[in-house]
């Protein structure tokens, strides 16, 4: 069987190259894929968010499944594509599985697709287009182009020594958007927290005690909006930490009567990460488990991270 497949592949390859070299009309199944890009969707499985991404190029399609419930990542090499019915057939070379993928509603911002495992390339060609309400094989799903990663960090502890007239000190708690996690790395961090101070891995030390060295190119600005309504970044607004000043300030309000620090609603921190990607952050609380009567210096924040290079939209 495998030999036949390979032979078919070779034949197809020859056919493809000869076609293109002869400048003939492409045969059915050899159409150029008319859309490229990274398309993702997020869904819940037993309470955890899963994220599925199809990265489409002319030659292959990479499938990535991330999340706490299941993970997977493989390439599907393009074997066949017809723009008549947007049928893609490809081979997952790592285990020799054929997939047929039907695309519809292709636009600048999203696609809707249906993926099914098939026995062979030929079986893929004869597979009927599933009905819109077909729920087998996870059914039809819409994938957003360049969908940023959304996450929430709960109770990031940002302790601090000093204060009350004494110099503030202590290690900053660093956060990396790419991994969506706290890190102790000296280089792979974007923003860091200590008390109410939020610093960036960009610019120069503001001059306070125990600040980590900057080795990235992070920047930030504060926008007045909701997290959802910040749909693109304004590159002209980014500033970096500098001697005597932090790029990120004014994100909270202090109540002198109750001494409670509240994350000011509508203050969105827009971040350029150390490696030039973009993120937006809304701090929700400065208290452990969001309880203002409890311990402070525990950040809970929502963030959205645009992992795609050069993409300035969320």
């Amino acid at each position, binding site marked *: 069987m495998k030999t036949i497949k390979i032979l078919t592949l070779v034949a197809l390859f020859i056919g493809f190259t000869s076609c293109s070299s002869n400048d003939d009309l492409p045969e059915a199944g050899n159409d150029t894929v008319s859309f490229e890009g990274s398309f993702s969707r997020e869904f819940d499985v037993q309470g955890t968010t899963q994220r599925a991404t199809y990265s489409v190029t002319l030659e292959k399609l990479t499938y990535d499944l991330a999340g706490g419930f299941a993970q997977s990542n493989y390439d599907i090499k393009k074997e066949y594509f017809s723009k008549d019915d947007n049928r893609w057939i490809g081979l997952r070379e790592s285990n020799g599985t054929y997939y047929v993928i039907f695309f519809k509603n292709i636009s600048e911002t999203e696609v809707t697709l249906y993926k099914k495992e098939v026995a062979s390339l030929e079986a893929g060609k004869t597979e009927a287009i599933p009905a819109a309400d077909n729920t087998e094989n996870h059914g039809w799903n819409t994938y957003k182009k360049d969908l940023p990663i959304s996450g929430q960090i709960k109770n990031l502890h940002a302790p601090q020594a000093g204060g009350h007239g004494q*110099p503030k000190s202590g290690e900053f708690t660093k956060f990396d958007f790419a991994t969506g996690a706290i890190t102790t790395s000296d280089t792979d961090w974007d923003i860091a927290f200590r008390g109410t101070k939020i610093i960036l891995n960009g610019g120069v030390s503001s001059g306070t005690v125990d600040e980590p060295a900057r080795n990235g190119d992070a920047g930030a600005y504060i926008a007045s909006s*909701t997290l959802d309504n910040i749909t693109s970044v304004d590159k002209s607004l980014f500033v970096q930490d500098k001697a*005597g*000043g932090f790029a990120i300030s004014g994100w909270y*309000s202090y*109540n002198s009567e109750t001494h409670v620090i509240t994350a000011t*609603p*509508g203050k969105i921190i827009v971040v350029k990460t150390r490696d030039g990607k973009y993120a937006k952050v*809304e701090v929700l609380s400065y208290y452990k488990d969001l309880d203002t009567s409890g311990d402070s210096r525990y950040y809970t924040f929502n963030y959205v991270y645009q992992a795609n290079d050069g993409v300035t939209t969320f």
Partner: protein
Amino acid sequence: MVLNKNIFVIYFLVFLSFTSFAQKKKEVAIDSINSKKLDEVIVTATRTVRQLSSLPLPAQIVTKKDIKNSNSLRLSDILNEQTGLIIVQDHGQGIQMQGLASDYTLLLIDGVPLVGRTAGTLDLSRITVGNIKQIEIVKGASSSLYGSEALAGVINIITDNPKTGFRGDVDLRTGTFNTTNTSVTTNYKKGKMGVSAFVNRYSNDGYDLDKSDVLKTVDPYHNYTFNAKVNYDFSESTSLYISGRYYTENQKNVPTELLVGESNTNEWNSHIKLDHKYNEKWKGYLDLYATRFKTDGYLNNLDNSRFSESDYNQLLVRPELRIAYNANKRHSFIGGIGWTHETLDRTYFSNKPEFNAPYIYAQYDSDLTEKLNLIVGARFDKHSEYASQFSPKAALRYAFNDKIAVKGSVGYGYKAPVFRQLYLDFTNPTAGYSVIGYNRVITRLPELDAAGQILNILAPISEFNGALKPENSLSFNVGLQLQPVSTVKVEVNVFRNNIKDLIDTQVIARKTNGQNVFSYKNISSVYTQGLELNTTWIPINQLKISGGYQLLYAKDKDAEKAFEKGEVFTRNPETLKTFELGKEDYFGLFNRSRHMANVKVFYEIPKWKLNTNIRATYRSDYGLRDTNSNSYLDVFDEFVEGYTIVDFAVNKTFYKNYQIGFGADNLLDFKDAQNISNISGRLLYGKINIQF
């Protein structure tokens, strides 16, 4: 109260308020063109004796009779029951008028200013009502006559003058929380000489609204007021008036479980006035006034070591010369020239600042026609420490007939920067932040910088080269007076105050310790607008029913813009979802109620020699705090619920000179421990009054 019952009584009242201005036994010139009847007169509005009902300005009077029958003790008690006024607790019991904070109402006692606004509020609980003849309230900016502080209006407390013969009055009231008030007045007047002495002692044990902690809401305190007056008529045309007042208060101070202290207040006022009538047209008045207000306090730790001390010592001296010229019955002028000298010695001041401000003013009051009255006036204040001020005012009243009149006025008001805003030099010993007065920034900030305390300067020092501008306002009042029948009076007044250059604190630098340096700047603009309605109905001679209402919108202009532009947000506390607020979500300034109302019924039963009254005041919901941290008061904030206070009093007279009374202030026992510290709950009391 029975109005216009006895023409002699009215005349006597008019006469009394005149004694300091005009000569006795002489005809009193009253502007009576617009009304055939004599009625209450007011001196505050024009600095001349004016009939209240014909005045083109919004004004009201609280009479001695109402104060007495209400069994009020302190000025704050009685003012809180007047339409459009509300007592707000902010470092003392201050008055809010036309939606403006208590800093913006000028308080006068017999025409001269009270001082001692340690934190902006002039504490009205300081003032006993025991020797008050009447309280005059003029609304709308009045700096054209009075200079600084008269933005919202002026409240003038007119105290009793000596009456003919030897008289005396002893008044005792005691009640809940050991609230005990004793007033003794003696008075002698014969021929050219009149003297009076007044002593008041007030004390209470304080009260505790929140039993969950060991601290009291208000600690025990007691105070004394002494007032002595001498009137002497050199001749029919020259008279002298001397008044000395002294107030002293001592209060225990237990702010936390770990601190115990005491605070003392001492205030004196001395006022000498010389009146001279040159002829029927020209009169001159010379005022010499001086007042000192002192507080000192300390807090000790539990081991008796000193935790903190604070003191405040303000002196005001003001000579003023006034000339009145009555061209004829229809046209009169008044002009004045004076000089204010003020000093303040205070904790956290690096120097002892001094203000010197000469001023001059003039006013023309004319009945242009029988129906049309016009008042125009202006004042110029030259000041040593801030920009000079020119304050004009104009008012018109047109009476269609005896039943309907309209009036309107427009005026400029301002409030000078206070010492604190110019000279404070304070660094919080525990938190480490600093506050520097505007005039001190130029020298002090470089000093801090040189000492290595400054991380970076946010507001360039050059911004502090000029003078801080006084807070100022333009106020508009349009009113309608109706008296459809002789027993019913209705007054409506629509007001708008545009206030700008409000002085706020602003961060001017960051310190190396992570804290800020603050100073004061002219920042915000606000407006207050609304409508006031006053009605009185006297269906029978023994019964007076009155009702008042105020509708108020008090808003910050920048805040309005921020809401319009969609820059204000709030977060749903459950879902934590943030959403944008619209213009309609902006409520306005803190501590302002949209609606305030009062109803009062005074009833007399002559055959029993008994008078009784019930008074109810209502204020609607208001916001005290920005509970959702967007720095604005919006409809999603938590509001203090509206409430009604009902007061009841009954007094019975025996043998002509003896009176006993009892009553209940706050009959319904309203309390809000969390939000309202100055309402103690129900106060039951009894009183005895003896006249001789």
